[in-house]
């Protein structure tokens, strides 16, 4: 019975695909703009075999990874600084909150003006979009450390380094991971948007191209690939977050 609910969800999802297939077969849905899943699946396999598609995927993954690897330390560092220094924090936190609320996607044309359409632009835009989430996450993580535990550690003779290693790090880990996961979602979205808007390579660029030339099976297959990868990365980070945050459960 424990698996009833996930099973129902799985059945539901299959049902939707089945319905889609049926509607195309019955002619209700125009196969030219929404081809049946049965045509998309083989195309998916074919795409994964094409060297230039794999290369494009690689470019996108590279951009996503580099942007993430830059944003995380920068964002967390700024966040920690703002949280630990009350004066700086009080001045800049409303600024960060405000900037976080400003939609970053609309600044994309500026990035093209400055950086062109190359890989660096995608990375820069990714960092720009993601770093604010991570700053807020860093602040939140430091604030989530219960001060009483620092007192306990000190009462038992912990020095500064030990307080950081034994109290701060384990306490902050789940919050940092959660904000990293959220940041990654923003990051992937930003990089793909930039690729669709203007690029020379990348899976987003290809998707835009297939859309323009009305190559629908390729388009849908690529969408499926992107969606699967994004969900997989999210799941991975979610598992880590759960593992490191199991102790945060409320008492039974």
């Amino acid at each position, binding site marked *: 019975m424990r698996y009833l609910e996930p099973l129902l969800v799985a059945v539901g999802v299959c049902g939707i695909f089945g319905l889609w297939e049926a509607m195309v077969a019955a002619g209700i849905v125009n196969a030219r703009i929404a081809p049946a899943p049965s045509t998309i699946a083989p195309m998916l396999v074919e795409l994964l075999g094409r060297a230039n598609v794999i290369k494009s995927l690689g470019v996108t993954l590279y951009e996503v990874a580099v942007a993430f690897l830059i944003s995380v330390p920068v964002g967390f560092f700024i966040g920690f600084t703002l949280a630990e220094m009350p004066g700086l924090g009080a001045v800049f936190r409303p600024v960060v909150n405000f900037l976080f609320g400003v939609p970053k996607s609309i600044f994309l044309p500026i990035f093209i003006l400055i950086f062109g359409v190359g890989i660096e632009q995608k990375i820069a835009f990714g960092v720009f979009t993601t770093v604010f989430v991570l700053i807020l996450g860093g602040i939140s993580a430091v604030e989530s450390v219960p001060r009483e*535990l620092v*007192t*306990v*550690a000190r*009462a038992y*003779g*912990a020095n500064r380094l030990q307080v950081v290693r*034994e109290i701060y790090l384990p306490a902050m880990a789940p919050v940092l991971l959660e904000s990293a996961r959220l940041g990654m979602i923003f990051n992937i979205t930003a990089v793909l948007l930039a690729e669709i808007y203007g690029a020379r390579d990348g899976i987003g660029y290809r998707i835009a191209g297939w859309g323009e030339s009305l190559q629908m099976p390729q388009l849908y297959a690529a969408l499926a690939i992107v969606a699967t990868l994004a969900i997989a990365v999210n799941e991975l980070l979610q598992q880590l977050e759960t593992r490191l945050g*199991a*102790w945060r459960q409320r008492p039974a």
Partner: protein
Amino acid sequence: MTQSAVSARAVTQNFTVEGQSTLALDAIDLEIPPGQFVALVGPSGCGKSTLLSLVAGLRLPTGGTLLCNGEPIVGPVPQRIGMIFQEANLLPWLTAVENVAFPLKLRGMPKRERLEAARAMLDLTGLGNFADRLPHQLSGGMKQRVSIGRGLVQDPGVLLLDEPFAALDEQTRMVLGDEVLRIWARTGKTVMFVTHNLSEAVYLADRIIVFSARPGRIVDDVPVDLPRPRTFSMMSSERFGALKDRIWAHIRDADH
């Protein structure tokens, strides 16, 4: 005269917040002989917890001297002075046994040794079966037992307890109180026990120090001459009531 386990001479504590200076403790003189069980009582904010944190070495007094076995207290010395807090303050990501072993980890003891020592301590406090549970899986009373185990694991000569049972229900409080007495009787440690609960103070202690309202001064030093081991029925005796009245008189008259 044997050296005091804990000695406070003219200890004063000033707190400065946003330019305002508050006197929390005013010239405290206190000598506690080894092995004595001392309760500290007084109205809220009278500084008894502050005194405890000074003895624990978490702060330095703004005036006066604090000694432990003749040596000045300049910082936390967990091997000699163990502290148990009101909220158990267990590290939520560590199991019970890991929590008890925590002070030993800070000192660099290898993993197997310290977990063994911690497990032994948990058996002592009756939590042997719960060693691998996380704090959120333990009741309030159990968490305090773990906290007590943690305070005892380095076998300190002095134990400081800061209202450890305040957050617990009455039954658990009584059970744990007996537990602390049992450990104290067997190990002969010096105990400083802060509480708001007058019955608890009279039941547990050899001697009760009564503080005034802020700034805290010692207004009475009450020896508790009830026989040991203490029993529940003693709590309804006349002597018990008289002692409580004596303490209550001070607290009631203090300006709150």
